[in-house]
């Protein structure tokens, strides 16, 4: 049993966690960062890289960027938050440059809008280490600690490369940065993101928001799980017999291709619209799109290769823990959330933040949360802490692998999650709720490192239930949420909160500006009646 104390504990060491650790250390806090995997390689930023929402401080350019994003996000975003995120991202990327990140140049000037994942995260780790932060790799957190007033006070978990030895870190402020949840779909880099943080927080009563915007799927060559989308702007799509798939524009092709795949068609891509003179630059931009094709002996400019769609859930979807303060405070005192574990509706509204906004959000929210947790910790004595939360840690009999498979059967298929129907959602929820009841009654099997798998299985189940409950509460199609052929409804221009474990609930949230509020609702439509 290892025991440690810190001012601030950061859970997760992707971009959000590392920026949080740096900000907290910079504010004078003693910081411990614990990652399930390895800080520096773990999570989809490390393996995939990030294009960023990067806008230099030209007031007009920024105002335009924010306004455009607000509309693109189905008007569920928050313009003040967007402006803060743009500004903070710009500054922090400036730090990266000052620390020597090797940016490319164009016409003699550095271009700073893209970060190559392995390079970025290796440097973040080094920086965090130099800031005096204690890094605990392969230390998944399994549950949070609370004091006798319900204030977050640390976490405990197991050290999976040390015979699953239990560990505890007591801390006066806690930052959750455990990423989103891609339901172990295999999308490269995302299998560490199983929604553990959401579950731990929900066990303390944390609320979530935007969980209906969780049906993010991405295209990958069918043989692998390399879901990089940018190069698909040059794709031509065909069916098995060579028939051209007619799509509005190659990047907007996703929905049409999802339809075809859901109908059992095989769909092929070829990057034959790429001008010859750009092909070398394409490889330099995204080596990890081309490497898996090269290795498989496919020349994507010449050969047709089959594609599939892989679920990325709330990694490139939007929902997560609800944020209630500028410091990324959650609804649990002492608990701050950054990156994908938090809702990204503030910057993305109803659409995906992948491709620019999520990366910026991770940097900015990480910084806000790290500072916030340090400030909170400074005003608090060392808490007396006890573990909270029960789903998973106590041993039981259910096989975690079977639970994961059962959840995946509800969330991976395109015809259940991408193309949602009310009946389908209700049926899925009935099965998922029954699964949760069994999981609570019988417990999950697993000893030693198997306890992590148990916990992940519980986290996936909870995640799916929040996602589908919120989806049922939004009786329209908006952004990532496609419900039958229901059109967008002006009176649903508000966020939906969701929470609870044994008794999940949903409730509507007032929109950003009261003047944009929907007309008053009738009683049976009122908050609380949506479940």
């Amino acid at each position, binding site marked *: 049993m290892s025991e440690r104390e810190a001012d601030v504990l950061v859970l997760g060491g992707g971009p959000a966690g590392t920026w949080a650790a740096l900000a907290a250390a910079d504010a004078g806090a003693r910081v411990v960062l614990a990652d399930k995997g390895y800080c520096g390689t773990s999570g989809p930023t490390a393996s995939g890289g990030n294009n960023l929402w990067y806008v230099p401080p030209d007031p007009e350019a920024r105002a335009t960027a924010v306004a455009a994003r607000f509309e693109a996000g189905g008007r569920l975003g928050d313009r003040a938050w967007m402006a803060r995120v743009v500004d903070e991202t710009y500054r922090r990327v400036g730090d990266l440059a000052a620390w020597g990140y090797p940016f490319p140049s164009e016409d003699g000037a550095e271009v700073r809008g893209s970060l190559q994942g392995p*390079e970025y995260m290796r440097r973040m780790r080094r920086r965090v280490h130099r800031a005096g932060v204690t890094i605990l790799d392969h230390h998944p957190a399994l549950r949070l600690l609370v004091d006798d007033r319900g204030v977050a006070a640390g976490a405990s978990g197991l050290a999976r*490369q040390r015979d699953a030895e239990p560990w505890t870190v007591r801390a006066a402020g806690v930052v959750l940065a455990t990423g989103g949840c891609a339901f172990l779909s295999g999308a*490269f880099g995302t*299998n560490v993101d199983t929604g553990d943080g959401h579950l731990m927080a929900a066990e303390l009563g944390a609320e979530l928001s935007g969980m209906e915007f969780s049906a993010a799927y991405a295209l990958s060559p069918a043989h692998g799980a390399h879901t990089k989308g940018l190069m698909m702007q040059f794709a031509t799509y065909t069916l098995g017999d060579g028939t051209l798939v007619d799509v509005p524009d190659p990047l907007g092709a996703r929905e049409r291709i999802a339809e075809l795949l859901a109908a059992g068609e095989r769909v092929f891509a070829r990057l034959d619209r790429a001008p010859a003179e750009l092909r070398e630059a394409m490889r330099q931009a995204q080596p990890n799109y081309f490497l898996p094709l090269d290795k498989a002996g496919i020349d994507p400019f010449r050969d047709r290769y089959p594609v599939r769609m892989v679920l990325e859930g709330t990694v490139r979807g939007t929902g997560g823990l609800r944020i209630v303060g500028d410091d990324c405070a959650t609804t649990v005192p002492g608990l701050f959330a950054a990156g994908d574990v938090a809702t990204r509706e503030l910057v993305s509204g109803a659409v995906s933040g992948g491709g620019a906004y999520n990366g910026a959000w991770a940097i900015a929210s990480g910084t806000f949360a790290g500072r916030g947790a340090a400030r909170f910790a400074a005003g608090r004595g060392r808490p007396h802490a006890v573990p909270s939360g029960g789903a998973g840690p106590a041993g039981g009999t259910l096989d975690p692998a079977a639970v994961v498979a059962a959840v995946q059967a509800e969330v991976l298929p395109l015809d259940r999650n991408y193309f949602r129907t009310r009946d389908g959602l209700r049926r899925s929820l009935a099965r998922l709720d029954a699964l949760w009841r069994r999981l609570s009654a019988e417990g999950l099997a697993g000893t030693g490192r198997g306890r992590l798998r148990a916990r992940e299985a519980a986290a996936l189940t909870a995640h799916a239930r929040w996602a589908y409950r919120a989806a049922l509460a939004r009786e329209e199609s908006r952004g990532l949420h496609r419900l039958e052929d229901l059109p967008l409804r002006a009176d649903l221009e508000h966020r939906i909160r969701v929470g609870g474990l044994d008794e999940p609930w949903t409730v509507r949230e007032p929109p950003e500006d009261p003047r944009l509020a929907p007309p008053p609702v009738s009683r049976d439509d009122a908050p609380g009646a949506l479940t």
Partner: protein
Amino acid sequence: MIEVVSAARCVTCDICIRVCPTDVFERGADGVPVIARQGDCQTCFMCEAHCPADALYVAPFADPVPPGSPHADEDVLGAALGEYRRLVGWGGGRTPGSRLDKNHLFTRRLRS
């Protein structure tokens, strides 16, 4: 998925064991890592990037290759081991791949 650990090249530095985000490797009795939990591999290529000896090969497939596949045969693969490390530009005398990053050309095309 990870398919090859080359005992001939491996310098038993344990780096892959540490950096694999999903904890796929175990240290073998001779110090050479063994692929202990291939089913947990998420084909992220991070081990291939970090191995200083170009001793690893991550096949591009989301499932294990069948027996006899060239993707599990070190002799056939040869120079393909450590390919991602070359692309990332790590190792003596290489330029970081990020210096050659051209993403801006492609995000710009989308905006225009």
